[in-house]
């Protein structure tokens, strides 16, 4: 019961924060709404008993990506101009609504093999087994490391002053 109430509060706040991100003209305030949205999504992970992912969400999204985005806003000084909509505002809205309708229809008419297992103990051990254990995702972990290295080097090379 408590989880249900938490879900509804978090769902409403996350949708409102996301709508704020796409509707505000002031980019900086939109970035702050995005931070709120990320924090609320971490709360949603907690209601899904994904404790490790909630911590990672706070660390990576709220801690790193938000700072990157705010730094980008400050370096590009587009706050006065804001983020107005382009000429495709109405078609984009229609596309988004059609997408939501199609996905919602598909979701509600699928018989998911859903059960509600008991709340799991801390997930970190199982996750580590999945990532690094036998028959796990160790190759993908290595590739992700290479991807992050390439992204860091690429970002440095792209923004370097000539």
């Amino acid at each position, binding site marked *: *019961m408590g*989880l*249900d109430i938490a*879900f*509804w509060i978090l769902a409403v706040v*996350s*949708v409102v924060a*996301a709508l704020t*991100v*796409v509707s505000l003209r002031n*980019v900086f305030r*939109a*970035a702050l709404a*995005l931070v709120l*949205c990320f924090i609320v*999504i971490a709360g*949603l*992970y907690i209601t*899904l008993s*994904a404790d490790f*992912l909630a911590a990672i969400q706070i660390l*990576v*999204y709220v801690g790193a*990506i938000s700072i*990157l*985005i705010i730094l*980008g806003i400050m*370096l*590009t000084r*587009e706050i006065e101009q804001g*983020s*107005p909509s382009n*000429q*495709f505002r109405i078609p*984009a*809205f229609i*596309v*988004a*609504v059609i*997408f*939501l309708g199609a*996905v919602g229809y598909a*979701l*509600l008419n699928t018989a998911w*093999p*859903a*059960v*509600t*297992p008991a709340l799991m103990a801390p997930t970190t051990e*199982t*996750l580590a087994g*999945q*990532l690094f254990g036998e028959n796990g*995702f160790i190759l*993908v972990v290595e590739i992700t490391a290479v991807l992050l290295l*390439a*992204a860091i080097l690429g*970002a440095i090379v*792209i*923004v370097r002053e000539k």
Partner: protein
Amino acid sequence: MSVGLEHYLILSAVLFSIGLYGALAKRNAITILMSIEIMLSAVNIAMVSFSRYVVSPAPLTGQVFAIFIMAVAAAEAAVGLAIIIAIYRGRGTIDPTKIDLMKW
């Protein structure tokens, strides 16, 4: 009605649609990047809710996918902002409707 898998999936679809609208309709490259982050987070919610509510032989695979999505999202944000800053330096604007050098 107690909250189940469908609720989380519908929430994920709503967040994804909001991000889709923002990515298509905004005229500021950084806002578009923020919308893409919202879309990736929405996909993450769907992945985690599947791993919570659907019994599978390999537990928590959805959460493993979510971790990889987060890593790719971090790389994408870093490279995307680097490109935006480089464009702003060269052209003085980050309005995607004006960055049309390669448009036919």
